């Protein structure tokens, strides 16, 4: 990413906060969405708003952006009422803020005209920002034909055209692939460094790590506010990553209501191949876990210590509010457990390929998924995930290769086979204009759930979604997280042997996400084979095994830990006296994906740290930058993914 020239002209009042909010309230007809907010945002700060669905984040942005009147309270943006400061605000709304039927250039001219940018400056800024976002080759392409990531970058360009002092970004990276997501945040870090003040809402807590300060919002009020480091420290807990060959038994032993109850353990979160345990004291916690393992007859545990994630902060804080604490009611399976004992694979694909005219969408993909296994298929948009899934489901005839689904190799669309399969898609599972009950009854009918079981199954879905008594509600009115759990329920009522989940937690807050994964794991334990597609890497940690797709090929397979381990290189976390300049300097020596700014830290991925690091550190000190600390960090799955994709020549747009 090229360095940014000065973006923001300094306003006269450089000392006071750029955004100041006091006693902000907003009441809709019968709902108080915002209940007394107080906060300040300083110049050049990236301020993150995180919170579950329906916490009031979008309302706050509407008010800050001057497009909605607050019910009470004082809000000042650059010292003025938001409506009067609109020329100083760039606002990316949650829906695409672009005119999709206009080209990239036309969108920019339109915004520039609306915001009265003088003509000579328009072309200069257009050139600079398009280059900054890597869109300079697409000036005449229609906005509607850009990928999700490029759309959001263009929207950001539009917002920057009038050189506002403040940027408001409402979930700017939903539906954006990991590589573009990281590039987007690199741009944000750059313009914040130039003095732009940025407020951003995000459901992704790994993004919140890149904010200077974060506010945790729940039910229209701020519960926690501070730097990511402060929030973690305030939690006062440590995170232990526990790995063992017999994860299931350990999880059962630690489960609430299981054989052990202890004040030592604050939280247990199961992932695909590890358990995350939050403890007050690492030393005592480790000893305690080992003793439980010993008494349960599990061998020695491998335990890695780490700091808690922001997601831990988020979930534990909201749990204090009573969110997400409801006991999960297990599904009453009527059939026998399928179990991993079954020898045959549930899904087996061998050298699947698909050719669309000249374009080879999928190239020789082979994978096996056993009963009881959760398999994650990852990849950016256009990597070939959807085509692969369609072939596996039998919706699309492969150009070559063989397929086996639930023991069948022919007639993949036969009603009998479809009866054994469940499918939950990102958007289209439920009818928005039917009531919750009508939707569930419809799916019971479609999948021929036996009459005697229907009532019980519907009640199960309602109670796990905490919707008992609200079954008459119109489905379209439910917030995203609830809808996703409901669609999951609707797609499993017939006890499928194989379950396809397409982006099951896209746009869902961490609490709802955890509840959904509890349900998914329950089915896997019973023996259901589960195939999940996602481009959200945090989600992938929940899978037993992963397949990474890039440019139509399966480029890596294995458990999350294996994939991370298989990546060459190491993540180095640097703290320097000038983060932005360090990043700019390092990018002159390294490919830009290897360097990312996380608030006051730099994440650098090096293949041979022993050899490379000293040279880089001296490069920084030669330029007058002091390196305050350098340490090895743990590779996230996203780091691994981005590395893999970039080494293979980047994502296609």
């Amino acid at each position, binding site marked *: 990413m090229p360095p940014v020239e000065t973006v923001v002209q300094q306003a006269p009042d450089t000392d006071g906060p750029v955004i100041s909010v006091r006693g902000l309230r907003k009441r*809709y007809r019968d709902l108080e969405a915002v209940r007394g907010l107080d906060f300040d945002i300083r110049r050049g700060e990236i301020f993150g708003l995180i919170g579950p669905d329906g916490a009031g984040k979008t309302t706050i942005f509407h008010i800050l*952006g001057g*497009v909605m009147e607050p019910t009470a309270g004082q809000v000042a943006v650059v010292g003025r009422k938001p409506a009067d400061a609109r020329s100083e605000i760039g*606002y990316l*709304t949650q829906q695409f803020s672009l005119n999709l039927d206009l080209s990239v250039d036309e969108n920019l001219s*339109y915004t520039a005209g609306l915001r*009265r940018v003088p003509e000579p400056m328009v072309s200069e800024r257009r050139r600079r920002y398009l280059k900054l976002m890597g869109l300079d080759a697409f000036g005449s392409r229609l906005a509607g034909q850009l990928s999700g990531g490029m759309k959001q970058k263009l929207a950001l360009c539009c917002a920057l055209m009038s050189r506002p002092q403040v940027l408001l970004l409402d979930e700017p990276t939903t539906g954006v692939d990991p590589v573009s997501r990281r590039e987007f945040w690199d741009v944000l870090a750059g313009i914040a460094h130039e003095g732009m003040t940025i407020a951003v809402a995000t459901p992704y807590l790994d993004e919140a790590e890149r904010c200077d300060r974060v506010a945790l919002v729940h039910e229209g009020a701020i519960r926690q506010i501070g730097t990511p480091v402060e929030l973690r420290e305030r939690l006062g807990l440590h995170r232990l990553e526990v790995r063992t060959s017999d994860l299931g038994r350990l999880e059962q032993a630690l489960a609430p209501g299981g054989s052990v109850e202890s004040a030592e353990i604050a939280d247990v979160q199961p992932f695909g191949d590890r358990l995350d345990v939050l403890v007050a004291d690492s030393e005592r916690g480790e000893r305690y876990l080992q003793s439980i393992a010993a008494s349960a007859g599990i061998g020695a545990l491998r335990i890695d210590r780490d700091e808690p994630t922001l997601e831990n902060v988020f979930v534990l804080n909201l749990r204090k509010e009573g969110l997400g604490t409801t006991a999960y009611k297990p599904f009453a399976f009527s059939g026998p457990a399928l179990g991993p004992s079954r020898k045959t694979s549930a899904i087996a694909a061998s050298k699947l390929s698909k050719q669309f005219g000249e374009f080879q969408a999928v190239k020789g993909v082979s994978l096996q998924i056993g009963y009881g296994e959760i398999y994650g298929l990852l990849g950016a948009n256009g990597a070939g995930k959807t085509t692969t899934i369609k072939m596996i489901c039998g919706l699309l005839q492969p150009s070559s290769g063989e397929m086996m689904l639930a023991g069948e190799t022919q007639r993949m669309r036969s009603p009998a086979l479809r009866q054994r399969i469940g499918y939950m898609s990102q958007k289209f599972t439920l009818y928005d204009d039917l009531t919750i009950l009508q939707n569930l009854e419809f799916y019971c009918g479609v999948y021929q759930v036996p009459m005697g079981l229907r009532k019980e199954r519907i009640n199960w879905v309602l109670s796990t979604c905490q919707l008992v008594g609200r079954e008459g509600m119109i489905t379209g009115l439910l917030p995203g997280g609830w809808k996703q759990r409901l669609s999951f329920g609707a797609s499993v009522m017939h006890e499928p042997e194989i379950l396809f989940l397409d982006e099951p937690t896209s746009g869902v807050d961490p609490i709802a996400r955890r509840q959904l994964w509890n349900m998914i794991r329950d089915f896997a334990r019973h023996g259901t084979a589960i195939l999940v597609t996602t481009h959200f890497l945090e989600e992938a940690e929940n899978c037993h095994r992963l397949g990474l797709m890039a440019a139509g090929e399966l480029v890596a397979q294995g458990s999350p830990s294996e994939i991370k381990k298989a990546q060459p290189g190491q993540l180095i976390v640097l703290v320097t006296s000038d983060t932005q300049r360090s990043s700019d300097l390092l990018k002159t020596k390294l490919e830009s994906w290897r360097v990312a700014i996380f608030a006051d830290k730099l994440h650098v991925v090096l293949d041979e740290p022993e050899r490379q690091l000293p040279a880089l550190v001296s490069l920084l000190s030669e330029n007058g930058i002091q390196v305050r600390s350098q340490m090895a960090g743990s590779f996230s799955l996203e780091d691994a993914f981005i590395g893999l994709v970039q080494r293979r020549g980047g994502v296609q747009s």
Partner: protein
Amino acid sequence: MNRVAVQCIKELRQFVRDRLSVALAFGLPALSMLLYGFATRLEIKNIPLVVQNLDNSALSRSFIERLYTNEQFVPVRCPGGDLVKTVLNRGIAEAVVIIPPEFARKLRAGLPSPVEALIDGTDVNNARVIKNSIIATTNSFLDIEGLSPFRPLIHPQVRLWFNPGRKESLFVVPGAFGIVLLIYPALLCALAMARETEQGTILQIYASSLTASEFILGKVAAYVIVGIAETLLVLLIGFVVFHLSVAGDALLFTLGTLLYLIDACLYGLMIAVGAKTQNAAVQAVAFGGFTPALLLSGYLYPVRNIRYPFNLVADFVPARYYIELSRDTFVRGAGWAGQWFVPVFLTLVGLLLFRIARKRLGRMQISA
């Protein structure tokens, strides 16, 4: 650059980009013009008529001949039996004329002889035309045969002004302009407005401090330009296909049309401000715009025929005034002297619609 122009250029770009919308914007008005022009026929011709002649004399046959001389009636074969039941009930003919026995003898003797006419009254208008026509034919028959007992002292000499040939297209086509130039510009403008709401781009406009007036004027300007292009197209069809010619004041017509297009676009926009989807906007415009324009504008029948209280509504339907102007321009030709109130009224309506639209857009904020 002026922000009204910015908004207008953006609208036109979006309009031109969508090939389908361009095709519809010009295809539908052209098609509607042809449909209205050729399919609307108010004159009643070729009415099936059965005559039962019980007299069978030279005189009665000459009477029958006279009934069929102009193209108003056509003979149909009578199946026999009970005439009323078979002919009228089954719809074989719309009228039956029965000439009684002794018809010729009574007339020659100077005695009255009734001729029975049975008319299907299902279509009231039709029935009235048939009745008048039979009476008129009878009177002229008496005149010509010299059977009239007295000589009429008053003899009306009728001359049709403005449309001496009674060409129906001269009545229908200028009226159709009023329908077509209202509906399509209003629809396009409503769709453009509802699209902003549906796709959420309206929030960017709110966030940009564009005023409601600038927003409205920009959008309306764009679709008035499209409307002008549509006007040229339908006028061309009028001149070439339906042989219209300008009888009145072209300048007045141009002014009136411009105002009418502005009203139409403002109307579409005003309706669509409250619509959440493009679909809802289309329905609102179709019901609120098309129906009154068709029924309350005098397009098919005179406005004075409309009953209370709907005649009050009709007084506020812009299509009514525009159709009047259009008919004056292409048929009557009175010009300013007779039509000065049309531009005045259309301007007032425009101002009113603009105010309502601005009020509905509110302070360019999300209303909660």
